[in-house]
């Protein structure tokens, strides 16, 4: 076969065409911006004329690198301390989520816990809700007078003043992030526990091994890869968390990399921020490599196989009821109580006074009053809220459609060409955005698309830019859902259609998609939900004309107009929950399919 013929036959297969197209466009959308970011770390930005004397914007400089890494005390406060804070809170949050999520996963799959279906549904609520939900709830509850002025509900009810370390800083950040990502651990570890061959454990039972020994010698080693994956994924998610440390850390001047990034990019020295973004991306890539190394050692994929029988469940005996009740109460406290506090806070007029006569509808349906909140009307009467709401929904739907569809195609192409180098390359590229911290990713796109680039005009301030950044950032969710769905589907099914001469697009829409509908749709659902509640990714790119609900929430919060912020937050959570439940009920898609795979 000549080279030309080989090329012809290569290009005639749709999965090859998709693969090549993805390889080119993803290189452009993920690797190219990285180079643009590197360039931004060595040039003078307009706002840096104050600090770099006698320079012009666009000049080359090593000023930023010197200041961030090699300037003694300045570097300490600018970079090294926030860096270690980031590492520490991420480690702490990993521990919390692993213990909690892994523990619940074990209880659900291996013990006779009561109310399992309620617990397994409600336990993932904190992950569906925006991460700062719990952070704001924490403040509503525990803020103290020392720094927060008006005391929170907890102090109002009990009269006990919370200490500073408890109300702000590292401790609450670790707890809140840990709670937020515990469902993650629950889904990943629970998935393995469910699918693992019970024969192994049963054999041990027959040989009269103790429960503890079974756990230590059989269950743990099998679950270990899942624990490590969870650890690394939660770690990188926590590292890129912005809203939680911003809400809980700033009152005590506790800085992490993301909060520093936000400050520097809007302040006098954006160059510092671009370097920090680069550091976070390097860290994320390292984590990906470690993760792949672990996963690679375990070559096979967990597949749905026939299981011999049900393993006998551990009897919790006298602990059964108290443990179950305790867990339900805990879930209610984490998933429902925050919403109650938002509702209450959004009705309070004078801060810190929770009596009934202090309640008002002003912040929901009131006309603007100049003596309260600068004359801003209640959120139900505020045209900008509706603009933000419309933008949020529009953006999330478009992003979900783009990311979801590309994910299906990517899954199809990657699985069909499995084993080739190009397939591996696209697979990695499609996962890469997951490891880029959202804010860093936003920073890259800002630096790259704020000016005309090659044939692309300046996209800054356009809706298209938000769609682009969202679709690329959430592609990993969709492509993983797509790959998993395709892996479960044997090639013969499509070949049958091929033999009958069914064209490609018909095979996709009539055969492949319908069979794996719920898995593919999960690939649409997760980007939608993530987008609805995303702040860090968009906060740098948003312009007033295309603001979304989350960035408005953040602004209100920064301004100290807590009632409006609480009301908007309630609105976002309700929308996300309603959409999630509706899609789940109608199509069977669910977010655990998206993450767990």
């Amino acid at each position, binding site marked *: 076969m000549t080279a030309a013929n080989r090329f012809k036959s290569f290009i005639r297969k749709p999965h090859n065409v998709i693969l090549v197209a993805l390889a080119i466009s993803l*290189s452009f959308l993920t*690797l*190219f911006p990285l*180079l*643009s970011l590197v360039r931004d770390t060595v040039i003078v930005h*307009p*706002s840096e*004329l*104050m*600090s770099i004397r006698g320079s012009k914007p*666009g000049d080359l400089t090593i000023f930023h690198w010197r200041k961030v890494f090699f300037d003694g005390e*300045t570097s300490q*406060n*600018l970079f090294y301390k926030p860096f270690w804070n980031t590492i520490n809170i991420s480690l702490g949050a990993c521990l919390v989520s692993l213990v909690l999520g892994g523990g619940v996963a074990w209880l659900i799959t291996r013990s006779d816990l009561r109310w399992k279906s309620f617990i397994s549904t409600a336990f993932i609520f904190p992950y569906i809700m925006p991460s700062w939900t719990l952070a704001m709830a924490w403040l509503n509850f525990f803020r103290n007078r*020392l*720094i*927060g*002025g*008006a005391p929170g509900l907890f102090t109002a009810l009990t009269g006990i003043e919370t200490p500073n370390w408890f109300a702000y800083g590292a401790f609450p950040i670790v707890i809140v992030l840990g709670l937020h990502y515990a469902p993650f651990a629950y889904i990943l570890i629970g998935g393995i526990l469910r699918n693992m061959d019970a024969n192994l454990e049963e054999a041990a039972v027959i040989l009269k091994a103790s429960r503890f020994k079974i756990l230590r010698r059989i269950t743990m080693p099998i679950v270990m890869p899942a624990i490590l994956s969870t650890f690394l994924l939660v770690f990188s998610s926590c590292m890129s968390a912005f809203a939680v440390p911003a809400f809980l850390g*700033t*009152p005590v001047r506790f800085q992490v990399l993301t909060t520093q990034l936000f*400050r520097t*990019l*809007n*302040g*006098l*020295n954006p160059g510092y921020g671009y370097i920090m973004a680069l550091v976070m991306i390097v860290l994320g890539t390292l984590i990906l490599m470690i993760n792949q190394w672990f996963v690679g050692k375990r070559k096979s994929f967990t597949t749905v196989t026939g299981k011999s029988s049900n393993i006998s469940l551990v009897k919790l005996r006298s602990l059964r009821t108290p443990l179950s009740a305790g867990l339900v109460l805990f879930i209610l406290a984490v998933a429902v109580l925050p919403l109650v506090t938002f509702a209450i806070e959004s009705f309070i*007029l*004078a*801060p*810190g*006074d929770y009596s009934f006569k202090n309640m008002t509808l002003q912040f929901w349906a009131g006309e*603007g*009053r*100049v*003596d*309260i*909140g*600068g*004359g*801003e009307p209640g959120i139900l009467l505020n045209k900008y809220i509706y603009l933000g709401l419309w933008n949020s929904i529009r953006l999330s739907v478009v992003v979900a459609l783009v990311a979801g569809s590309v994910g299906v195609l990517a899954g199809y192409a990657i699985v069909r060409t499995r084993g080739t*180098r*190009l397939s591996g390359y696209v697979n990695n590229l499609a996962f890469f955005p997951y490891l880029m911290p959202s804010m860093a990713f936003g920073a890259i796109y800002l630096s790259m698309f704020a*000016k*005309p*680039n*090659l044939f692309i005009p*300046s996209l*800054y*301030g356009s809706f298209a830019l938000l769609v682009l950044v969202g679709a690329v950032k959430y592609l990993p969710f969709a492509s993983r859902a797509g790959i998993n769905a395709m892996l479960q589907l044997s090639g013969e099914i499509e070949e049958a259609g091929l033999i009958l001469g069914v064209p490609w697009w018909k095979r996709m829409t009539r055969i492949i998609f319908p069979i794996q509908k719920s898995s593919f749709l999960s690939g649409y659902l997760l980007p939608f939900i993530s987008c609805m509640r995303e702040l860090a990714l968009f906060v740098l790119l948003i*312009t*007033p*004309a295309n*603001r979304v609900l989350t960035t408005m929430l953040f*602004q209100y919060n*920064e*301004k*100290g*107009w*807590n009632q409006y912020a609480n009301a908007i937050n309630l609105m976002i959570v309700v929308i996300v929950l309603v959409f999630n439940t509706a899609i789940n009920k109608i199509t069977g898609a669910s977010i655990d399919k998206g993450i767990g795979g």
Partner: protein
Amino acid sequence: MKRAILCLLVIAVALTGAFAMGARDQGKAGPQLPELSHDELVAAAKAEGKVVVYSITSRISNAAAEFEKKYGIKVESSNLKDGELIEKVTREVGGNIQGADFVIAQDSGRVYGQLIATGYLVNYVPPSMRNVIPAQYQNPLTFQLINKVFIFNSERTQQPVIQNVWELTEPQWRGLVQFKDPKSEGVNANFLTMLTSPEWSAKLEKAYEQRYGKKLALTTKNAGYEWIKAFFRNGLVLGNSDTTISENIGIKGQPRTTMGLFVYSKTRYDATKNLALLPMTEVTPFSGFIYPAFLMLTRNAKNVHAARLFIEFLLTQEGFAPWAKDVGSYSSNPDIPVNQGDHPISFWQPRLVHEDPQFLFENRAAVEEFVNNITF
């Protein structure tokens, strides 16, 4: 394979650089339009039908509503933080992207250096205002002056709780004073920067001698830096918002008297929010600071006429009404009286620290770094 991709990327980057260079010098013309009579301006503005404004004050939305009512021209107003506004305008005008038609911006050092010197913002004084507004407020056109003063919780005492700013560095005020994080608002960093100027550091030095009867021993460059360091180290609580700070300070039933340095207009919350706040005006050597907000067109404004009309409107009593309702906001138009119960600008001038754009531009970065390195 990989090497080929790498090569392509390198070439692409090089091209990007070239394109970016080429794109930089577009559209320097700016909205230099012939002067119109008021009626012609109204007609032209109505033909545009819309105007976009970014503003550091949230009350722009109230003024916008009035403007819409009066002229039937749609207003898109956005309230931004000062640094955010400057960054957005830099990107939008620099990239020749349609954004705001005009802005209300603050933070003199950065506005001068980053937006006026680059020609991104264009000055426009409405003809009807040229003989009204004092010359010193005309270039760049000042919209209003805003002041931040020392305000204390007045539940226990109505008498000023300090006489000299150096008292704030003493143990009895440890952890009881609040100030908005200078990194989240430029004007606060400007205030600190101005304290390190020769004028204010000399005044601070004198104030120190008045209070303690001895000369100040310097561990830093001058008395300004010295006071900043001592002020921050004395458990200063940094807030994210003047609104929150005013609530924190003003809330009743606190175990000890607290105070803060925040916008004077927040004393308006007193009644509805059940707060107890009183300002201090006789502190040595300053009782706070005052800064201008500028009212300017963007170079690539699309709705120039509507923007001009709105600018004129904002300088009239009618347009300024949303701000005039309260203390702490002073129009550059001397015909608009200050709020009853407030003092005129002439009262505040000698009591407050002013912004000097040139000094700020040259020294702000150093002071920010200094503040960032204060540990406690």
